[in-house]
């Protein structure tokens, strides 16, 4: 763990989804846990897998692949759930696997390249980072959260 971070540094959790590398700010991550079957929420968006019991708290789970427009996950025990906290709300992100924690300087974050239309990730990706020759997309959890929950019906 690199703890001697200056304000310019940012620690990121890198995870993998359909062979693509993504990352989120570690400050927004509460914990990482294994997959347990979720209870579906009536009238929810298709990417809402449902809710699970996180030590007495009802935690909604988003299928991140489905949310990004990739083929929906077939969750199994090898999947991981990244429990994140945004605006005092907890939400779990279902990902294929968590691979790494990296520490970078904020200046290393580059703007997302303009790519072909139909690449729906753009709405959720705030920038990209080059790590050992691979491109890692920085995901904005705020953008992932379902927007009009009350009107999900």
């Amino acid at each position, binding site marked *: 763990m690199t703890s001697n971070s200056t304000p310019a540094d940012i620690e990121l959790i890198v995870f993998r989804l359909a062979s693509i590398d993504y990352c989120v700010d570690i400050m927004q991550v509460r914990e990482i846990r294994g997959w*347990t*079957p*979720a*209870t*579906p*929420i*009536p*009238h*929810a968006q298709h990417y809402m897998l*449902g*809710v*699970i*019991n996180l*030590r*007495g*708290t*009802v*935690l*909604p789970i988003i299928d991140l692949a489905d949310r990004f427009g990739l083929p929906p996950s077939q969750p199994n025990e090898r999947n991981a759930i990244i429990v994140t906290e945004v605006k005092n*709300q*907890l*939400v779990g992100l279902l990902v294929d696997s968590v691979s790494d924690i990296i520490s970078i300087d904020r200046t290393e974050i580059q703007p997302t390249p303009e790519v072909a239309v139909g690449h729906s990730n753009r709405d959720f990706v705030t920038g990209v980072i080059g790590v050992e020759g691979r491109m890692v997309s920085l995901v904005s959890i705020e953008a992932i959260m*379902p927007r009009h*929950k*009350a*009107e*999900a*019906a």
Partner: protein
Amino acid sequence: MDPMAAIRDTFFQECEEQLSALEEGLLEMEDGNTSLDTVNAVFRAVHSIKGGAGAFKLTELVSFAHVFETCLDKIRSQTLQPDPDVIKLLLRSADILADLVTRCRQGTAIEKSLYEGLQAELENVVGGLADDQSAEDDFGSIDFTPTVIAVGGFESEPAEPTGMSEASGEAVGPVASIMFRPHSGLYAKANEPLVIIRELATLGKLACRTSFDLLPDIEAFDPAENYLSFEISIEGNPSYDDITSLFEFVEGDCDLKIEMLAGDDVAPAPADSPVLEAPVNDTMPTADDIIARVLGRQAGSEPTGEVIALPAGTSAVDERAEKPVEKAADRGTEKGPATKAIRVDLDRIDRLINLVGELVINQAMLSLRVSQSGAVVAANVGSSLEELERLTRDIQESVMAIRAQPVKSLFQRMSRIVREVADQTGKAVRLRTDGEATEIDKTVVDLLADPLTHMIRNAVDHGLEMPDRRREVGKPEEGTVRLSAAHKSGKVVITIADDGAGINRPKVLEIARRKGLVTETAQLSDNEIDNLLFLPGFSTATNVSSISGRGVGMDVVKRSIQSLGGRISIDSKPGHGSVFTMSLPLTLAVLDGIVVSVADQTYVVPLTAVVETLMPESGMLSSLGANGQAIRVRDRFLPVVDVGQVIGIRSEPADRNSCVAVLVETDGHGKSALIVDRIQDQRQVVIKSLETNYGPVEGVAAATILGDGRVAMILDVDTLIGRGSESTSSAQNMVYAKAS
């Protein structure tokens, strides 16, 4: 928190209690109970607020409370008759006092206009404050010259402290010798030497003698003056501070000399001695010094300011001073002194409740694991588990009881609303309350305030007729709004009834049609018309007043009640008034439910809605329209709601041959049948919020965690049925205006 802020906090907390006692007392007086006990209780409440406010230099509060108190004092001394007008004025003053307290608490500026008018009215009633005394006088003055002042308006007889213990033979420990001569002013303020002496008697062995030395000749005798004085000696190590604190309340209205003598130095007062001849020790502090010390550590400075600096806190001093009076007044009434209560932070209780919730879930998991383990469970394990389950439930109920609160405070707030609206509309209204002791979860009480306020306003503003109209139809001019609470089959039922004109159904229907809420041709039953009031955007007020009728009306009320897991219904009789009935859960933390399976998922149906369950036999279910169904139960056809379809987890209906029907009844939709695949269990479940991390879900009231650790949805039966009957296009003609 720094100690000052903590003391201040305590003061405001006590203020709330005092205000509630004040209101309660005034309402009793309004009902004709003007006994001295009641008036005293009211006086005491205002006095305590004034006392505390003085200590915190809340000048506006002090000056208003002072006039208020003076007015009450006049009633107490029977120079002012508490007629209805005066009591109305007092009630309004109580409201303003509450406002002032709130503002002081929040630290917001107080405009003079808020209280000046009323203060002037009070002063008028009092008669210009003839015997004006500075507001701080009776708790702050250290001016203690023993002079005899004749004060007018004194009517009661001086009390004879008869029956006090006689001086005894043997002296043990230090002795306090007290010379106490009440002025007539002390009696005029309804203080009672006997009470003080009784209280002194608790400090040690007490001997008291009445001295008649000052009695003048019959020509010079003023019947309004007190000529008696008391000589008291207390054995058994009484402390200065204890003694002075007892006199603090009457300080300034009496001559007082307290001397502390070592036990050996003094012979006990002989029983027949007319005057206690006690040696005076010059080094002993005089009463002036003692009182100065109690009130403010440094003599010569502003005593009121100094009280703040006392670490013990002013409230403590006040309480001690008040104790004797309070005890006397409470004697014989049902409200005993609230001694065995502690204040606990709500967060702590909530944490405990959450933990107990976890315990319940864990206990359920344990039971499940044991039964799943397959092994033959030894009998003692089984009984231990049962014992654990019982204990868990007991613990849970006890914890829940901590949060339970009587609805009294809520109801008291409503009486103010009634007064205000009555004033604004020019109607004469009386609020009657019932079942104030009914207990309900604190959260429910808090969240109920807004909807209840709204409904009370509506009842007065729309429900009741104007006085002349009431006279025409032969009703008493004064309208009555009845607010009652009661426990009924595991729920709290709160009703608001008015004796007004009832719902004007033709007008309601006309408005609903004009606003497109119902179709022109729809034939609605009376009940359905009444329920139109709950539709969003509906407002019957022809002229929108500032009080109610802003178009956000009963639909908001209904939604808030529903969000509390409650139901609301209307019953109205033209010419006789309307009754709004709310049924609310006792707690928001647990509920009893039936655990059912639908398409591999588990749901919980709240038991309160369930009437019965049955296995439909062939022929009981029949199709109705394209995809609707009805069920025949004892020759009645009820609409069927297929849970799987309505909740959206499967498109085809449940298997007719193996399904189970759960008959439910709701206030809004009558009886219906919920079709599920299987009933698993009936048990108590812990309510978990779905909204904290997700949001509201239609048809789902909340979530819970089952014994296997998985989350299950608790169904919101009312909205499910609403959706169901909508899609099956049953006899519903209403076009619900969609909120989303």
